């Protein structure tokens, strides 16, 4: 009898660019990798609301305020799409959220930096959402169907996020000297952490090769980072701002920008929980979860009562 090697067949299937759907057979490490990646992605959307929410009440105009509110609301929605995608793999949302709240699960380190000025809201939309979009556009073609579909939805909605951020930067750069300085200061603080969002270099990234082979990832960390830099440098020039990298230089031969070394020590420092806001973010999430408990309890009680009333009616 011929032995069927499920893993080989799975690999062939994925390589032929066909999508994996929830009930399909898949190698256990593929499932686990996806649950980890999708839930971390969901946590990042949820925690990502905090630095921006810090400025909702202080937005400089109603136009900026409604845009920021809509953006933060989108991030909540994106978190929910992603938790749903993780659940199709057999994960339980309550467990995933529990891991976030206990500090066991990771989320993108970028959200452990503070938003000190209004210009930071511009820089986040422009740079942080810009970097996230580069990653997410790639993930629209990921091999797992529900993840890919969530990404398509998210990308459609995120393009407004980046534009609103750049518009804020543009307004500040066209403003007073002080406003332009605010914009430059925000760029100085957000540039390097944004480059770190793509993760360690390909040489250091242990999971990358497997994820690429499974077609979960379609481009390497370094490729995505380079793409982002090439796209962003001209945008900074248009604003009249200086990217805080003395070694940044256009390379005619490769058609890419060369850039200076990234401080990976800082990256691992923040990743391990020692960034400027790690503790604050986790406390805020836990507080929100605890403060919302009575709402969940009330909704449950109401659902139960309605169900019982229906029972009485049909019995009568």
């Amino acid at each position, binding site marked *: 009898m011929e032995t069927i090697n499920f893993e080989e067949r799975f690999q062939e299937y994925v390589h032929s660019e066909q999508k994996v*759907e929830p*009930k*399909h*057979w898949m190698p256990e490490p593929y499932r686990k990798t996806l649950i980890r990646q999708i839930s971390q992605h969901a946590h990042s959307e949820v925690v990502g609301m905090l630095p921006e929410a810090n400025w909702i009440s202080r937005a400089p105009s109603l136009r900026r305020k409604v845009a920021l509110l*809509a953006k933060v*609301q*989108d991030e909540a*929605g994106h978190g*929910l*799409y992603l938790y*749903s995608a993780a*659940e199709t793999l057999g994960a339980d*949302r*309550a*467990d995933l*959220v*529990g891991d976030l709240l206990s500090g066991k699960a990771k989320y993108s380190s970028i959200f452990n930096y503070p938003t000190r000025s209004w210009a930071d809201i511009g820089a986040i939309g422009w740079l942080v959402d810009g970097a996230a979009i580069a990653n997410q556009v790639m993930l629209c073609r990921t091999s797992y169907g529900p993840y890919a*579909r*969530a990404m398509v*939805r998210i990308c459609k*909605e995120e393009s407004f996020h980046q534009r609103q951020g750049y518009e804020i930067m543009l307004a500040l750069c066209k403003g007073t000297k002080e406003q332009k300085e605010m914009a430059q200061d925000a760029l100085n603080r957000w540039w390097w952490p944004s480059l770190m969002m793509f993760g360690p270099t390909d040489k250091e990234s242990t999971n990358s090769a497997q994820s690429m082979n499974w077609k979960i990832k379609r481009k390497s960390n370094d490729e995505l980072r380079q793409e982002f830099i090439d796209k962003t440098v001209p945008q900074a020039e248009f604003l009249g701002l200086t990217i805080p990298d003395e070694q940044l230089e256009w390379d005619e031969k490769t058609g890419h920008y060369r850039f200076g070394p990234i401080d990976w020590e800082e990256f691992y420092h923040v990743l391990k929980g020692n960034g400027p806001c790690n503790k604050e973010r986790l406390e805020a999430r836990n507080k929100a979860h605890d403060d919302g*408990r009575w709402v*969940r*309890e009330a*909704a*449950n009680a*109401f*659902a139960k009562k*309605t*169900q019982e009333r229906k029972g009485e009616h049909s019995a009568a």
Partner: protein
Amino acid sequence: MSDTDNWKIWEVFVRSKNGLSHKHVGSLHAPDAEVALKNARDVYTRRSEGNSVWVVPSEAITASAPEDKEALFTPADDKVYRHPTFYEIPDDVGHI
């Protein structure tokens, strides 16, 4: 986790405009149908994506198994005579 965090899962279907079918867009958690509808509106129609929403408890859906795919769907593959192009009509007849 307390039991308040274990609401059941609902599948959400949205009709983007009248004349089209409802289409599956994703899922969400809710304690009952009424809250599921409200959540669906917030989560899946923030940009005028629809004018009608259905929510269905996930557990109420019976799905075919992936391993039954061949038995269920391949029998249709060799029935080309179910398609109009199978029939040869001279061009002179005009559109038919």
